[in-house]
Structure formats: C-alpha cells, structure tokens
C-alpha cells in the first residue's frame, strides 16, 4: 500500500478525529480567552497584589510543560473527580493558553494611548466604563493578530491530548501507524490535516481583522 492509498483509505476514520481536535481546541481557547482577559485585568490593575497574583499564574503556567499540565488535569485529577478526557484536556489547554493570552491582552490594553482614558474620564466616565467602552474595544482589535497566532499554536499543541487517550488527530495517526506499520506515511498524513486546519484558521482570522479595520475607514452603517 502506498501513500495515497493510505491517505484515501483513512479519510473516513479521520472525520471524528478532526471534529475532536476542533472541539478540544475551541474549548481550550474559550477557557483561555476568559482566563486571559481575567489575568490581563489583574496585570494592568493599580493594586500590587493583583499584579503579583497574575505574575505568579503566568510564571507557573509558562514554567511547566503543557504535557505535565495535561497529565495533572487528567491522571492527577481523576483520583478525585473524573471530568473525562475532553473536559480535562480542554481545561488544561485553557489554563495553558490563558497565560499567553493574558500577556497578549495586557500588551494590547497598555498599547492604547493614555489620552483615550483621559478623554473618557474628562467626560465624566467612570474608570470601569472607560475601560469597557473606550479602551477594551480598541485593545481587542489590536489583539487579533497576536491572538490568531496563539490560536494556531493552541491548535497544534492540542495534539498532546493524544497522550491521555483523547481521540484527536494525532491519536488517530498513532493508531494508524501501529496497525499499518507505515510510520512515515501516517505522520505526514496527519501533518497535512493540521496544515489544512491552520490554513482555515488563518483565513478566518484574516477575515475578522479586515472586517474590523474596514469599519473604521468607511461610513457608519447603523
């Protein structure tokens, strides 16, 4: 059996694997965005304690391998509560990406000119209101390119959940390799699947970016 035969023959089996990889990546990103925004707020806060808490979180997460985090959340946690592979893996990916996303949001919030907040405050807006209505919308827009980059990293890193037995793309590839013995072909095929997903993700991020920058150039359509 050659490469193309293996490729075509394994397509049906990959359908669920693709969906599972997308699901766990989306779950991880959703959790990661929430965590990221939360810790970004702690980091830009004027309260030193909150800065330190955020720094500690980011240090713990960035200082340990993702595979260790995934194993803690699955094999470690299973002694107390079994969340299942999808949820455990998704939370681990969320915690992990949350630290990086926090830094992205922090950077984009701090990149917004101080004059914006000052103008808002001078009009009588509260600090929460000026953050929510003036700074954040601009910061989120600015965060989209680095977020897109992080999303791609998250998608590829999700392959590590294969090692807790989650039936994702990489897990599928391992199974195909062990049943056929065609290691080179199996892993190149799964690589192609990741490339296609990354391509789609890049396309979506670019579209969002363009749509947002267009709205600032033209006329308001409300």
């Amino acid at each position, binding site marked *: 059996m050659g490469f193309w035969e293996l490729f075509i023959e394994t397509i049906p089996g990959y359908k669920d694997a693709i969906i599972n990889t997308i699901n766990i990546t989306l779950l991880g990103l959703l959790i990661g965005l929430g965590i990221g925004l939360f810790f970004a707020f702690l980091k830009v806060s004027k309260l030193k304690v909150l800065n330190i808490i955020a720094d500690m979180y980011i240090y713990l997460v960035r200082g340990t391998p993702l595979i260790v985090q995934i194993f803690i959340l699955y094999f470690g946690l299973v002694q107390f509560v079994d969340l299942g592979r999808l949820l455990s893996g998704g939370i681990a990916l969320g915690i992990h990406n949350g630290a990086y996303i926090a830094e992205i949001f922090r950077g984009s919030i701090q990149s917004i000119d101080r004059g914006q907040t000052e103008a808002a405050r001078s009009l009588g807006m509260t600090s929460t209101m000026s953050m929510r209505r003036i700074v954040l919308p601009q910061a989120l827009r600015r965060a989209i390119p680095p977020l897109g980059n992080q999303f791609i990293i998250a998608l590829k890193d999700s392959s590590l959940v294969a090692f807790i037995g989650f039936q994702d793309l990489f897990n599928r590839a391992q199974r195909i390799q062990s049943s056929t013995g065609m290691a080179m072909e199996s892993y190149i095929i799964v690589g192609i699947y990741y490339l296609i997903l990354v391509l789609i993700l890049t396309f979506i991020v670019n579209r969002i970016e363009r749509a947002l920058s267009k709205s600032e150039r033209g006329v*308001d359509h409300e």
Partner: protein
Amino acid sequence: MSKQQPAIEVKSLNKYFGKLHVLKDIDMTINENEVVVLIGASGSGKSTLLRCLNFLEMKNGGEIIIEGENIDPKKDNLNTVRQRIGMVFQHFNLFPHKTVIGNVIEALIHVKKMNKEEAVTIGMEYLEKVGLAEKAKVYPRTLSGGQKQRVAIARALAMEPDMMLFDEPTSGLDPELVGEVLEVMKNLAKEGMTMVVVTHEMGFAREVADRVVYMDQGVIIEEGAPDVIFEQAAEERTQEFLSRVL
C-alpha cells in the same frame, strides 16, 4: 449660588512627580465667564495645573474649589465634578473606534443616561456649532487635524459643562488649520463660556483673554490684563519670555 462665586479657586496647590516639585504653592482664581490664558515655557507646569483642575492629576497639597465646592478627591464623586468641566487636549484624543457623532454622544448616553435619539439631537447641534454636522457619520481618521479638534470641542461642549479647559488645542495642528479652531474658541468666549486656555497663540490671548497668567518653573510669576502683560510686564522673567515668543 451667588454671581460672585468664582468658577475655580485654587489655594496653595502643590504637586510633585516623585521628587520633582512641579507646582509650587499655586494660588489662582477663575471667575465665571472669564477667559484666562495660561502662558509659560515648556515644562513650567501649565498642563499639570490644568490637569489638576479636573483631577486627571491628583494634587499633593492645597485646595481646589469648584463653584464653591472644596473638592476632596477621596470623598467626592470626581465623575460628577468632571462633568461640569470640559477638557480639550493637544492630541484631540478622539475615540477612533467611534464615528464623529458616536464620539459626541458617548458620554451623553453613558454618563448622562440620555436615550440615543435625544443624544443625537444634542450631538448634532454641537457639531453644527463647530461646523462639522456633515461629518457626523465618518470616522475620525478621515478628518484633518483642525476638524478633529473641532469635534473634540463639540464632544466636550455637548456635556454642557460650566467651564472649559484647553491644553494647547492648536499646538498639534498645521499652521493653516489653527485659525478654524481658534475661531470656534473665540465664539465660545463671546457666548460667555468660562475658559482656561494654555496656548502659545499670543494673538488669541491678546484678543480674547480677560486675563493672562505667566508661569515659570511651577510658580505663577505674574498675571494681568493682556495689554498690561504684553506691553508693560512688571517682572523681568515675563518680559524675557515674551520677547522670545512674540
């Protein structure tokens, strides 16, 4: 409230940035309907003084009395104080993610809690006043500097403040765009708006100011009617400064 009550009273105001003593025992009174122009070399503390007046900077000592109310930043609601004091910045600080009218109605809706229709009606009135009603639906980035600054003025005016602070409103503009902004400010002065203006436009000061205040190194050196300050300043430092800028 009595007619005599000053709009702003500053008593021995002190401000430090770390060890840097930026404002030194400033005493100043701005009367209602008065136009005061603040002049002085760069770094003398003009912006800081202006920003202390609406509490964008916090004083380290002294009193700031707004319309008879001695404001305590720890106790008083600064957001309601700021609503009474409009501010215009050198760099406009328009909200780039909002249209021109969106900029003007933002605080009407979210601070004054007006409904959108009402806010747009008022917002359009003020855009008309600065001559930019036809630009209501475009985004700020498509405007010239002079237009941006006029929108910023409309945005501040729409809140119907009792007084306006201008921090070098024309310093960021190409020379040919200065006039249109000064024109709007002149009209505002004619209508009796209480104004404190930091500017290097001495022509404007001469023509519009009721009083000119000269600051140097965090101290008010001298103040008086424009013709007195410009023709016969008492202090040597003032004369020196004026000979450099006039």
